[in-house]
């Protein structure tokens, strides 16, 4: 048990190392193909791209809305258990932990003869999200002694997790000088999924004087369900590592559970140097049908304890098995089942909206054979990001300054306010050597000076060839 708690704290602490899902540094960066994944309707200022396989984009991010390692392991306060207890009491059921990772396997795109930009690729994604299960953790850490007549609410348990491969193709079309629209179709190939989001149930210990014993314990409307897919077979201890690896690879290529989704986006130029952009990503559903296992615990029960009948033998002269009778009654009323029922999950839909203003116009060498679009060295903007989570939308608001120093080098600095931090400063650098582009972006830079006090971080980098006519 202690091992589990210690592992949980370390994992949660580690999570705080690495703000998830929100890729504000890559949003509205027109020179990078990855901006098309954040807004398929972005203005594309290149004519082709090919990512270096497995290296065109790696993103890992994590966040914890209410706790960091320093809260638990502050070396100036030696009583770690007091810190754990006070942190558990301080956190709320709406505090959450999340980890997000993306690895682009293939990425390419080119401008079609009709001027539209076609982009496609494959990426692997992992996304884990859990609300802090406040009441169950409180019960396990402190027990019910200090919480008589106070219900422990099992609806606090809510988490999702998935690992999948995404195959996508998108088209970006400039409708007119003002409007660009884009859409991306996605096919999801599920590797693993876990979901437990609609739980209910209260456990209460009441000391009502009307009760026949000191306390009556109530388990009311318990309904806990954990859906999994892609877990049961891996949990099969008889399989070799090679068999499991082969199975995982098969699932990556539609050998397991599948789904489909859509990204839509648009850019509208209010003026040459003033635009609004927006996108909705992952409007998608997954059908979990293979290798599905669901763990259920449900029912209601109340007890005052065991009631001996005196004398201690039944008419048959056998001792009355009070405990067995009690256990049977509990099992009849609180059922524990494992079933194999198909289920579907919605992908965590995200939206982006931004307003961007450019200044200091760029002057390019005059060539009467080319048509030039007015561009600016400097861009400033405000970007709102939202992601749907089981209980609500989570938001992040970013302001940014994007400076193009030369045709081959740009930097973007951002300041984000979200559930993790009020002083999240991020930096993106993107450089080109001829057609080869490398970019690196990191969030919450101040947090890196002491990761123990940081509640979120993200890093992403990639390299690719970008072509311009």
């Amino acid at each position: 048990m202690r091992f589990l708690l210690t592992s949980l704290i370390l994992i949660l602490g580690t999570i705080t190392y690495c703000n998830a899902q929100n890729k504000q540094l890559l949003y509205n960066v027109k020179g990078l193909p990855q901006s098309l994944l954040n807004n398929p309707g972005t203005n594309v200022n290149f004519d082709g791209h090919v990512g270096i396989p497995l290296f065109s984009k790696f993103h890992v991010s994590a966040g914890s809305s209410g706790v960091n390692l320093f809260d638990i392991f502050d070396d100036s306060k030696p009583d770690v258990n007091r810190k754990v207890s006070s942190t558990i009491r301080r956190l709320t059921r709406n505090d959450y932990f999340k980890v997000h990772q993306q690895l682009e396997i293939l990425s390419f795109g080119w401008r079609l003869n009709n001027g539209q930009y076609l982009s496609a690729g494959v990426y692997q994604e992992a996304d884990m999200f859990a609300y802090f299960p406040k009441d169950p953790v409180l019960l396990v850490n402190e027990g019910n002694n200090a919480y008589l007549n106070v219900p422990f609410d099992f609806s606090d348990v809510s988490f999702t997790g998935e690992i999948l491969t995404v195959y996508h193709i998108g088209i970006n079309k400039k409708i007119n000088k003002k409007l660009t629209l884009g859409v991306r179709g996605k096919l999801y190939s599920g590797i693993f999924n876990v979901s437990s989001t609609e739980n209910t149930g209260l456990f209460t210990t009441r000391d009502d004087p009307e009760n026949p014993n000191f306390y009556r314990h109530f388990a009311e409307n318990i309904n806990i369900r954990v859906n999994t897919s892609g877990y049961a077979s891996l949990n099969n201890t008889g399989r070799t590592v090679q068999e499991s690896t082969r199975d995982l690879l098969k699932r990556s290529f539609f050998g397991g559970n599948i789904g489909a989704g859509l990204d839509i986006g648009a850019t509208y130029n209010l003026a040459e140097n003033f635009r609004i952009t927006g996108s909705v990503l992952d409007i998608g559903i997954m059908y979990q049908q293979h290798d599905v296992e669901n763990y259920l615990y449900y029912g209601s029960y109340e007890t005052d304890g065991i009631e001996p009948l005196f004398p201690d033998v039944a008419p048959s002269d056998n001792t009355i098995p009070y405990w067995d009778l009690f256990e049977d009654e509990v099992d009849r009323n609180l059922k524990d089942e494992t079933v194999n029922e198909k289920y579907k999950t919605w992908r965590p839909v995200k939206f982006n909206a931004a307003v961007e203003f450019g200044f200091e116009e760029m002057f390019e060498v005059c060539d009467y054979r080319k048509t030039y679009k007015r561009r600016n060295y400097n861009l400033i903007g405000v970007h709102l990001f939202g992601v749907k989570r089981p209980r609500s939308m989570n938001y992040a608001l970013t302001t940014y300054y994007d400076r193009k120093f030369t045709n081959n080098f740009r930097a973007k600095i951002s300041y984000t306010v979200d559930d993790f931090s009020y002083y999240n400063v991020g930096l993106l650098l993107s450089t080109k050597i001829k057609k080869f582009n490398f970019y690196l972006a990191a969030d919450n830079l101040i947090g890196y000076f002491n990761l123990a006090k940081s509640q979120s971080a993200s890093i992403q980098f990639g390299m690719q060839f970008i072509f311009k006519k």
Partner: protein
Amino acid sequence: MSFNKHLKIVVLLLLFSVVIVSCVKGIDLDQTEEIALTPDLQVSLLTFDVTGIDFKDEDSGIFTPIIRDTVRLEFLDDSYIQDDLVTVEFSFKYTNSFPHPFRNKISFLSENDRTQHVVSFDIAPGDKNSPVVTDWVELIENANIDVIKKSIKMVVEIEALPNQSPFEGELKFESKGLFSFEF
């Protein structure tokens, strides 16, 4: 080298340094060794309500001054009790409306019926209109906790100590355990 090239190198180095030279300060991860869950769980144990009928032999109808019953507490054998139980505080409460005193004996027995721990106390006589409450708290501290870890049965024995008054009334029993763990 142009200003922009210098700037590019400086900024790239700066970003790399921030990411690579990032550090963790002011924490002591050795404290993980000391992390423990210490729940205090209040658990209802046995409850009953006996009257004069319970002191009569079922077959012969003859008064029997001593009655007893045994309840197996199987959870005492579970690993969380065996490995992580630190203290137990048992609370027993009798509410007596018999005008007679009783002698109570609660025994904790092992699987082979060896007595591990006994709690004995007298139950004060009461009155039909004003029952008397007798409370008893038995603390089993860490030094002595093995007596509970070795137990699996709880035997409740009540001995009536009759007097001249009619043997009529009700004897209610309540019990609970406050189990303190360190996981």
